[in-house]
């Protein structure tokens, strides 16, 4: 496509993404009370949504090929253990990521 068509398409993509972010707030504006089941979902969805994102972030792990997701597994267990122990987000993320980088760059190559 031409440069103008690229800009037009990029704007369409921006609008589509915005629509998915705004739509719930447009359907249920602040001055209108949302149905009870939506309020209920607002209470239980946070935990479920984080679980969804956790699984989503592993979607590209190749379990059937070497190294069979081992770096992800080891680094993730380290994050979980360290976080349950110290409850320090930055520390858990730093150690977990450095460990993962070492694993994929030097151990499982």
């Amino acid at each position, binding site marked *: *496509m031409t*440069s103008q*068509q*690229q800009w037009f*398409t*990029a*704007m*369409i*993509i*921006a*609008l*589509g*993404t915005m*629509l*998915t*972010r*705004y*739509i*719930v*707030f447009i359907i249920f*504006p*602040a001055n209108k009370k*949302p149905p*009870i*089941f*939506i309020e*209920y*979902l*607002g209470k*239980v969805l*946070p*935990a*479920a*949504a*984080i*679980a*969804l*994102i*956790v*699984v*989503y*972030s*592993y*979607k590209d792990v190749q379990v059937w090929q070497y190294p069979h997701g081992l770096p*992800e597994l080891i680094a993730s267990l380290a*994050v*979980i253990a360290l*976080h*349950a122990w110290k*409850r320090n*987000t*930055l520390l*858990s*993320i730093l150690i*977990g*990521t450095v460990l*993962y*980088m070492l694993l*994929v*760059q030097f151990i499982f190559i």
Partner: protein
Amino acid sequence: MKEAFKFAFPKTVPIFAGYLFLGLSFGILAVSQGLSPSLTIFMSFLVYSGAMQFAAVPLLIGPFDPITHFFLTLIISARHVFYGITMLKPYSQMDWKKYYTIFAMTDETFSLNVALDIPAHIRQDWVFFHISWLNHLYWILGGVLGVVLGAMIPFDTTGIDFVLTALFLSIFVDQWLSTDDHTPAIIGLLSTFAMLLLFGKQHFMIPSMLLIIMTLLAQRPKDQKGGDIQ
């Protein structure tokens, strides 16, 4: 406002690392595929979605088909609807800041904002807002760096993207340890995992979200049931 910033900024540090790297990867990829620097940076500004921007690169160098691309965007970005339902109450209560905060609701910003434990003397809406624009800034900064530096990164960054997985995991552990009822978290894990196995990584998000919502509604306690759904 100042207190809110002091509270918000440290929360965004892991995202600084993750977004700088991912934004930079996007910038390098987009320019290497022939997109102009201005278009690349425009997308980091106004699309502001990692998954969508990476998906957009092959689309933008392919044939012109805006209608298909619009619907493809809705499908790839559908998970934001799920986040919108979750944040409906807290974001709706905000003043003018909500218009920007809703626009900037990425996976990472959502996962921070949904799990905040804000002290009573700090205004929640300002924390949401600060976290949102800081993350957006990191993302744009990464994109600009990618465009400028190209492939001249001095050290091996393989694996640095795990920073976002580690962030999501630590938030999950926090939530798990701070609640007694683990049913929603377990439903979220099992539903998403089952749909990933069933539909594969390209198509599992929408079925996962539907299954989570249906399961949560099906098992809700009697006192939460209104006559509004049936």
